[in-house]
C-alpha cells in the first residue's frame, strides 16, 4: 500500500490555508473572519500531521495537539470579543471598527 506523497499532503494544506486567508481578507462579517482563521489553523495542523506521517514520528501529532489547544483558547476569547463588539456597535461589520479612539 503506497503512502501519500509528501508533496500532495502539503499541497492540500497550502490550498486550505490560502482559502482561509482569502476568506479572512474578503469577508466583512466578524464571525466569518474567525471561521476563516479556524480554517487556517486547521491547515497548519494538517501540515504537521503530513510531516509526522512522512517521517513516522509522533512529534507532528504532538504539535497538532498544541495547535488544537491554541485554537480553542483563541476562539473562546475571540467570540467573547465579538459579543462585546456587537453590543457596542450593533454590527458585526469589520469596517465599522476602522476608527480608533485617541
Amino acid at each position: 500500500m503506497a503512502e501519500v506523497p509528501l508533496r500532495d499532503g502539503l499541497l492540500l494544506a497550502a490550498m486550505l490555508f490560502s482559502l482561509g486567508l482569502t476568506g479572512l481578507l474578503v469577508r466583512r462579517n466578524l464571525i466569518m473572519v474567525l471561521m476563516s482563521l479556524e480554517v487556517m489553523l486547521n491547515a497548519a495542523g494538517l501540515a504537521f500531521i503530513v510531516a509526522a506521517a512522512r517521517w513516522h514520528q509522533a512529534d507532528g501529532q504532538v504539535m497538532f495537539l498544541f495547535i488544537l489547544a491554541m485554537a480553542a483558547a483563541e476562539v473562546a476569547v475571540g467570540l467573547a470579543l465579538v459579543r462585546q463588539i456587537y453590543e457596542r456597535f450593533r454590527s458585526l461589520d469589520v469596517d465599522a471598527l476602522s476608527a480608533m479612539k485617541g
Partner: protein
Amino acid sequence: MNFAFYISGAVAVIATLLMLTRVNVVHALLYLIVSLLAVAVVFYTLGAPFAAALEVIVYAGAIMVLFIFVVMMLNLGDRAAERERQWLTPGIWRGPALLAVVLVLEMFYLLRSDAAVLSTGAVDPQAVAIALFGPYLICVELASMLLLAGLVGAYHLGFHKAERRARA
C-alpha cells in the same frame, strides 16, 4: 488508501470554498463542519487516528458549538424564531449532507477493508502520549496555562455591562 486521501481532500477544499461563498453565517457553519470532518478523514488516511478523533471531538464538536452559541446569542429578538425557520429551510441541508455522505461511504470502505492498511506509516496514540508526557511535558503545562488564560479572558469579556453594574 491513496484514493481515500484524494477524495476527502477534495471534499475538504470544496466544502471550504462553499463555506467562504455563503452569505448566511449558519449555512457557512454547516459547510465548515463538513470541511473539518473531511480533514479528520484525511488524518485517518495519513495514519494519525488519534488526531482524527480529536479533530472530530474538539474542532467539529466543541469549537463549532461555541460558534453556534454566539450566532444564536447575537440574534435575540422577536424575529429570532422567524429567522431561524428561514435559516434551516430543507434545501439548505442538501449540499453539506451530500458531501458528508461521500465521507461516510469512504469511512465505511476504509473500515471494512483490512485493518492492516493503517499500519504503514501509522503513529499510534501510545507513541503520541509517550512523546507528549515525556519531552514535551513543559509544553503541556504551557498549553494548560494558555487555556486557563483563555477561560479567564472569555469570562471577563463575556459579561454584560448591565450584569456588571448589578454586581457592583
